[in-house]
C-alpha cells in the first residue's frame, strides 16, 4: 500500500468525484533495535556533535585575528578554515568543492543507493532526533496512535506541550548554532542574550528555528516525498546493480501470518514472511518495502532491523529484507548466486570525474599563494603619445597581501625594451622597478604607467611582482599598446 493510495477511493466504474488532493496519512514509526538503528544513532551523534560543537573550536591566528577554527566572516569577506583563509577571489574553490560533493553523491548513490537520504541528510538526522524526543514523551507507535485517536486529556496535553517545547528548544539551538558559523561563537552568544546583537541575527535565528521545528517536527517525510528534488532524479543514478533496501520476495512469498502458516492446508506452501507488518510500522515514510523500490523509500534500512527482530523471535533466518541489488535478487529467485559489480561504467565514470575534480582541487590549493596580482590595462585611452614621442600605457594593478604583516613589493616589467614604470601620481619618477607597499591583510590598488619608445600596435609584456620579505614572486601577463607602425 503506497502512502498516497486512499482506502476510501472508489472502485472501477463507480460514479463519483475525482479527488485531486489527498489527506496526509499520519505516520507513527515504531521503535526498532538492531544494527542499522545503531549505525543511524552513531551517524546522528557524530553529525550533530560536529554541527553544534564546531563553531566553538578555537584556532589561534595571532593578535587581532578571529580565533574561531571555522568562520565565514561575511562582513569582512573572509572565510577561515583552520589554518587556511579564503577571500572572495577564491570562490572557485567552492565550485570545485560543490562539484566534488555532487559527483561524490552520484557515486555513492550508484553504488549503495540512498545512503545520504537514509543516514546523513539533515532532514533525516533532525527528524530522527525529533522522533526520539516524541517517543520518550508520548510513547511508541501504539501509544501515540491511541492518544491521537482519544479525546484530549490532561496527560496527553502536557505531554504534547512538553514535546513541542523540547522541539522548539532543539530548533532554537540549531538556529543559534547556524549563526555561530558566521559570527564568533562566544561573541554571538553574549550579544544575543544581552540584546545587543544585530537585528539580522535575531531574524536568522528565528528563521532557522522555525524551519527546523516545522521541517523536522511537522513536515518530516513530506519533505522527502514532495519537496526534495533529489529523490526525483536519483533514479537516474540507480540501476540493477545499485545496492537498495530490498524485500526478498522469492524467499518471503507467499506471505502469511504465523497462525495461517501453521494451519496451512496440505500442498499450500508459505515463504518466510510472517506478514507481521513490522517493516511497515517501522518505516519513517510509511511505505511497504515489500511493494518494491519506491520513490518514497529513503533507504534508511529501519525495516531491515524490524524484520530481523520479528524473524529472530520466530526462529527464522534473518535478512529477509536486506541491502541487495535487483540483479542479484533476480538471480537468487532463479536459484543462482551472483556477485556484486562495483566496477561498472557508471561508477568508473563517477569515480574518475571525482578524482579529476579532487586532483584539480589539490593542485590549485597547493599552488595557492599568499600573494596575488591582477593587471587591468586602461581601455581609454589605449595609449598616449607624450611630447617626446614615447608611448605611455596606463594599468590598474591590484595586489592582495594575505599576510598579517606589512609587505613591500618590487614590480618589474618584462618584455618591453626601454620600458619604464611610474605611479600615476608621481609620473615623473620613472624607474625600471617600483616599490609598492601594501598593508597587512589588504588588497591595494595602484595606477601604474609604463612608458617606452613605440614598439608597434601591441607588445606582450609581463608584470613581475616580488615580495621582498616573503620571497614569493608572481607574474601576470598583459599587453603594451601603441600606434600601428
Amino acid at each position, binding site marked *: 500500500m503506497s502512502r498516497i493510495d486512499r482506502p476510501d477511493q472508489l472502485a472501477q466504474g463507480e460514479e463519483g468525484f*475525482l479527488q*485531486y488532493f489527498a489527506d496526509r496519512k499520519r505516520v507513527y514509526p515504531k521503535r526498532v533495535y538492531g544494527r542499522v538503528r545503531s549505525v543511524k544513532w552513531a551517524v546522528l551523534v557524530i553529525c550533530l556533535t560536529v554541527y553544534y560543537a564546531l563553531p566553538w573550536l578555537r584556532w589561534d591566528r595571532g593578535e587581532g585575528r578571529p580565533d574561531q577554527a571555522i568562520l565565514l566572516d561575511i562582513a569582512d569577506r573572509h572565510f577561515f578554515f583552520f589554518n587556511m583563509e579564503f577571500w572572495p577571489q577564491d570562490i572557485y574553490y567552492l565550485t570545485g568543492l560543490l562539484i566534488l560533493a555532487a559527483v561524490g553523491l552520484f557515486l555513492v548513490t550508484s553504488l549503495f543507493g540512498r545512503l545520504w537520504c537514509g543516514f546523513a541528510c539533515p532532514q533525516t538526522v533532525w527528524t530522527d532526533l525529533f522522533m526520539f524526543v516524541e517517543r520518550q514523551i508520548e510513547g511508541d507507535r501504539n501509544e501515540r496512535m491511541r492518544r491521537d485517536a482519544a479525546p484530549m486529556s490532561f496527560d496527553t496535553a502536557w505531554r504534547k506541550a512538553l514535546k513541542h517545547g523540547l522541539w522548539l528548544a532543539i530548533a532554537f539551538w540549531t538556529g543559534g548554532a547556524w549563526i555561530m558559523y558566521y559570527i564568533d561563537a562566544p561573541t554571538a552568544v553574549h550579544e544575543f542574550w544581552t540584546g545587543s546583537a544585530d537585528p539580522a541575527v535575531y531574524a536568522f535565528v528565528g528563521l532557522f528555528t522555525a524551519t527546523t521545528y516545522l521541517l523536522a517536527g511537522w513536515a518530516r517525510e513530506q519533505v522527502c516525498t*514532495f519537496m526534495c528534488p533529489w529523490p526525483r532524479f536519483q533514479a537516474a543514478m540507480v540501476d540493477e546493480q545499485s545496492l537498495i533496501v530490498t524485500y526478498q520476495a522469492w524467499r518471503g512469498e507467499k506471505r502469511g501470518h504465523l497462525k495461517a502458516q501453521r494451519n496451512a492446508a496440505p500442498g499450500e506452501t508459505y515463504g518466510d514472511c510472517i506478514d507481521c507488518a513490522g517493516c511497515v510500522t517501522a518505516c519513517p515514510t510509511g511505505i511497504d518495502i515489500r511493494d518494491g523500490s519506491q520513490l518514497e523509500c529513503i533507504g534508511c534500512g529501519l525495516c531491515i532491523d524490524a524484520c530481523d527482530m520479528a524473524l529472530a523471535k520466530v526462529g527464522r533466518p534473518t535478512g529477509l529484507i536486506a541491502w541487495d541489488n535487483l540483479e542479484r535478487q533476480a538471480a537468487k529467485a532463479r536459484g543462482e548466486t551472483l556477485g556484486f559489480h562495483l566496477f561498472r561504467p557508471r561508477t568508473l565514470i563517477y569515480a574518475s570525474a571525482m578524482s579529476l575534480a579532487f586532483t584539480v582541487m589539490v593542485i590549485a590549493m597547493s599552488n595557492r599563494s599568499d600573494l596575488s596580482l591582477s593587471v587591468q590595462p586602461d581601455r581609454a*585611452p589605449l595609449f598616449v*603619445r607624450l*611630447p617626446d614621442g614615447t608611448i*605611455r600605457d*596606463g594599468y590598474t594593478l591590484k595586489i592582495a597581501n594575505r599576510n598579517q604583516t606589512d609587505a613591500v613589493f618590487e614590480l618589474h616589467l618584462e618584455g618591453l625594451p626601454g620600458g619604464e614604470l611610474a605611479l600615476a601620481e608621481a609620473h615623473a619618477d620613472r624607474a625600471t622597478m617600483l616599490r609598492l607597499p601594501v598593508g597587512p591583510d589588504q588588497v591595494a590598488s595602484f595606477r601604474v604607467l609604463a612608458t617606452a619608445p613605440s614598439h608597434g600596435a601591441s607588445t606582450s609584456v609581463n608584470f613581475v611582482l616580488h615580495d621582498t620579505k616573503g620571497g614569493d614572486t608572481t607574474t601576470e601577463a598583459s599587453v603594451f599598446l601603441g600606434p600601428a607602425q
Partner: protein
Amino acid sequence: MTTHIEKDPHSGTETTGHVWDGLRELNTPLPKWWLYTWLACIVWAFGLMLLYPSLPYFTGYWHGLLGYSTRTEVMQDVAKIAGQRALVMDKVAAASFEQIRATPALLAEAQTAGRTSFANNCQPCHGAGGGGRPGYPALAAGAWLWGGRLEDIQQTLQHGIRSGAEGARDSQMPRFGVDGVLKPEEIVQVASFVMTLYGTPRREASAETVAAGAALFADNCAACHGEKGQGNREFGAPALASRTHLYGDSFEIVQGQITNPHMGVMPAWGGKLDPATIKSLAIYVHDLGGGE
C-alpha cells in the same frame, strides 16, 4: 462534477479520464497541505495588494495602505548620499591641495569625485581617461598649453579658455593667411620649417624652403611659440617641437593653422560646478599622468 471512475489496468491507479494519443493521465493527488499553502499564498498576495501600490485606475493607481513608493525611497537614498557626500566635499573644499595629498582618505574621495565628474562633464571632449582628440588636448599626455600644476588646472577649469568669462585665459593666434600677413608661399615655407621641429620633415620641401621658413618663423612666430618652438604657457602658445599635436601633424593642418587658425574654447566651469568638485577634477586630471 461526478465522473465514471476509471482505473489504469496496469497500476490499478485511477485516471483523471484525460487521454492524449491513447495515453491516460493517472490521478496522483497532491497533498492537501500543498493546496492550503497555495491558497494561503493567494490570500497573502491580496494582503500585499492592499498594502502596496497595485491596481491601476484610469486616472491614477491604488497607492496602498502603507503609502510605499520606490520613488520616495530612491529620493531618500539620494538625499542621504548627498548628505554624506557634502560632509566629505566640504572637507575637500576647505583643504589645500597639499593637505588633500597628505590625507589618503580625503585624496581617495577627491579622486572618486573627480573621476565621476570628469565622466559627466569633460569626457565628451577630452575623451575617457583624458586621451584627447583633435582640437581637444590630451590631458594624460602632459602637453599643457597653459600649465599643468594643480593650481593651473584649477584655474583653467574655473575660468575656462577664451570662454568670455571673467579671468578666462585668453590669447589670439594671428590669422597670417586670411589677414594677408604672410603670402601663401611664405606660409608653405613656415609650415615646412615647423615640421622639422618635431622630426617629420616634409619630403617635398627643399633646404631653401625650410631655411626661408626658419627666417619667417623667427620674425613672426618665435615671439609666442619660442625660438626653438618650445611654446609659451603665458599665451597658451603650443609647443611646436613636440610629438603631441593639438590639431594634427600633417602639412595641410599646419598650413591651415597658420592661414586661418582654429582657436579652441574651454568653458568656464566656475558657475556650473562647486569649488570642491573643481578641486577634485583638478586632482583627477593632474593624476591622469600629465600633472606637474
